């Protein structure tokens, strides 16, 4: 109830994209363009070992041989990969510094975004408020990671990917690319060559991570791309909940964000991964600018009885093209995908999931809520498959689309491949338009049109919001409301 009220207040505040500011800070760039030397430059900047450089160069070679796929229901002009910076970093001392050493301009940026980087600030909050650790990634580098000490005491490793490559090479070598191979797809391959920073999490056997972990990605520099790489490993019996947030300044040109996220869950482990994506969506009228969010996210439920749950709230980006997936390899493992994708203005989204049932008695659940408004296009695309050996596989899919206004589009493209007679797959889908009747009914009770839309949309996405950690559910609810502003009438 408080959340509904907050949504309404937010709507009343009439903000469009409040994260659109630019931080004026000295930044260091790699020369513009993309070639093997740029890959070497990035690797050298990060002080990487030789094996890492070779891995990158190999990926780059493969990328040159690949072609950009065209099957998604999204449209954009050809990307000139030579006309961008592949590395941009604030000029500071080497590596993620302790908080005292972080540039005050950067701290101010995160404060403005509402991200608590000072541990005492988090602690000084309301009693009972959940504590969460933050890794803050600014363009190509991680600027600070909080609560590292407290996490280390529990045995949890939470650091930037650059640091993990230096400090925990054995873990990185074992798992990096084991879920999303270098040449998995065009954008994952590009990422493998030029990935800049991202988060690394390792939770040792039997450990329940004592707090929420989160990474906050910020694109600041112009004409640059962000290619972060995240790797999360939950060892046997471990549990971790992780959240990522993303924002970028308003710029007229499109910027590419091609991330790779790999999750590995071993026996009895559980990973909950939540995303609140609010990259700059471009100008709502002209469609100019905005982020191309072409991301590969995949979880490997490698161990028996392991469990991975993806929750995503996608409100930003000019184009969203991603399918957080689960490979259900371990027997009795399970995967979940809860998604809210909101498109307004000229935004395009082609998103969904893949549930690949390989182990016996594996289960998956997909709840997708797509909301299209304005002149936007919103596509759910999903695959549920079993191979011949995966007996007893079960899936439940529910795909609901809500249309607001008369110029938007919603598409549902489910693929189901059952190669096993014992599989039980259920698919339910609905498409509804936010009806004039409902709006009038709610307004007759005293809500303004904007408030009525917010209330009805909140109701539509409630099932998914419930899956988010509490604090973020409120944040997400606000985001959804803001994204749909001015969508009616």
């Amino acid at each position, binding site marked *: 109830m408080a959340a509904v009220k907050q949504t309404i207040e937010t709507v009343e505040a009439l903000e469009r994209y409040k994260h659109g500011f630019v931080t004026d800070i000295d930044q260091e760039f790699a020369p513009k363009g993309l070639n093997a030397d740029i890959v070497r430059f990035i690797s050298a900047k990060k002080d990487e070992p030789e094996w890492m450089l070779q891995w990158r160069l190999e990926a780059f070679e493969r990328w040159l041989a690949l072609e950009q796929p065209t099957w998604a229901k999204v449209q954009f002009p050809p990307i000139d990969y030579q006309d961008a910076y592949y590395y941009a970093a604030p000029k500071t001392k080497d590596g993620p510094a302790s908080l005292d050493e972080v540039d005050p301009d950067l701290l101010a940026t995160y404060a403005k975004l509402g991200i608590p980087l000072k541990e005492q600030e988090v602690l000084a909050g309301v009693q009972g408020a959940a504590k969460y650790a933050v890794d803050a990634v600014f363009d190509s580098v991680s600027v600070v990671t909080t609560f590292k000490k407290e996490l280390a005491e529990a045995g949890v490793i939470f650091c930037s990917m650059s640091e993990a490559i230096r400090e925990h090479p054995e873990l990185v070598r074992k798992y990096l690319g084991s879920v999303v191979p270098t040449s998995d797809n065009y954008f994952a391959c590009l990422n493998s060559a030029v990935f800049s920073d991202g988060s690394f999490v390792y939770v040792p056997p039997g450990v329940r991570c004592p707090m929420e972990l989160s990474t906050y990605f910020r694109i600041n520099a112009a004409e640059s791309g962000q290619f972060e790489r995240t790797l999360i490993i939950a060892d046997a019996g471990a549990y971790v909940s992780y959240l990522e947030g993303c924002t970028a300044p308003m710029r007229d040109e499109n910027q590419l964000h091609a991330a790779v996220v790999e999750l590995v869950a071993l026996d009895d482990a559980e990973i909950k991964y939540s995303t609140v994506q609010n990259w700059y969506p471009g100008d709502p009228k002209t469609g100019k600018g905005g982020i191309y969010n072409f991301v590969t996210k995949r979880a490997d439920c490698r161990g028996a009885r392991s469990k991975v749950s993806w929750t995503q709230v996608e409100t930003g980006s000019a184009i969203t093209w991603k399918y957080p997936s689960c490979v259900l390899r371990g027997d009795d493992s399970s995967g979940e995908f809860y998604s809210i994708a909101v498109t307004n203005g000229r935004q395009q989204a082609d998103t969904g999931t893949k549930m690949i049932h390989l182990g016996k008695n594996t289960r998956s659940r997909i709840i997708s809520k797509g909301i299209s408004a304005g002149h936007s296009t919103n596509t759910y695309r999903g695959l549920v498959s079993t191979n011949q050996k995966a007996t007893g596989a079960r899936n439940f899919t529910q795909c609901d689309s809500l249309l607001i206004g008369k110029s938007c589009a919603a598409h549902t493209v489910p693929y189901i491949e059952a190669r096993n007679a014992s599989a039980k797959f259920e698919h339910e889908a609905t498409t509804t338009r936010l009806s004039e009747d*409902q709006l009038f009914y709610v307004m007759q009770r*005293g809500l303004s049109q904007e408030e009525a839309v917010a209330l009805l949309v909140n109701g539509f996405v*409630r099932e998914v919001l419930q899956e988010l950690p509490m604090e973020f559910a409120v944040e997400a609810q606000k985001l959804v409301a803001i994204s749909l502003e001015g969508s009616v009438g």
Partner: protein
Amino acid sequence: MSMLSVNNLHVRVGEAEIIRGLSLAVPAGEVHAIMGPNGAGKSTLSYTLAGRGGYEVTGGSATLNGEDLLALEPNERAAKGLFLSFQYPLEIPGVPGLTFIRTALNAQRKARGEAEISAPEFLKLARAEAAKLKIDFDMLKRPLNVGFSGGEKKRMEIFQMAMLSPHFLILDETDSGLDIDALKIVAEGVNALRGPDRAMLVITHYQRLLDYIRPDMVHVLAGGRIVASGGPELALELEAEGYDRFVKAAA
């Protein structure tokens, strides 16, 4: 002065003029019934007073406590105390009844410059009103009207009415779809809201509802106009004779 005054109202829906010079005055403290055959313009009148889009007023006026209703948005009319109990209440998926009503109540209070209702105060009120209408409190935690029977939906309308405490109530065919037990409960709920500061317009096709909600006045609506007005006995006459006489008079 009447609480609701409608003067020579003309309303168009699409190409058709449905309300053609309707005048009506309902003083505070009174309950007026509007009866009429199908297609007489009963629902058009209630939607027009509540401000639904697509109902174009081409002439005349409607005021509530002296204020021009027709210039206001539907939510502004609600904040002024106008409540419409729908003939077919809408389902609101994912929004629990209590959340819905509290959000509406606070929106109205805010529009009137009043403080929000506190959570304990709201719950206390909700429990009391739910008990009166024999509504299971758990039902209020479920998404509003989703999967409810016709009778349950109507009871929820009266519950919302009691919670929002409006000044002017329009009941649009509240008796349709109700069995006799549900009708009695709903009528009791409505009667409990009668008072010197309130007025009601009860729109119905049948006389049955008026056995339970006794009107001060009965108006016959036919061909988009009030063609006859009288005391409660007029409803009984209509029941016995039908609408034919009035339909002919209106034509």
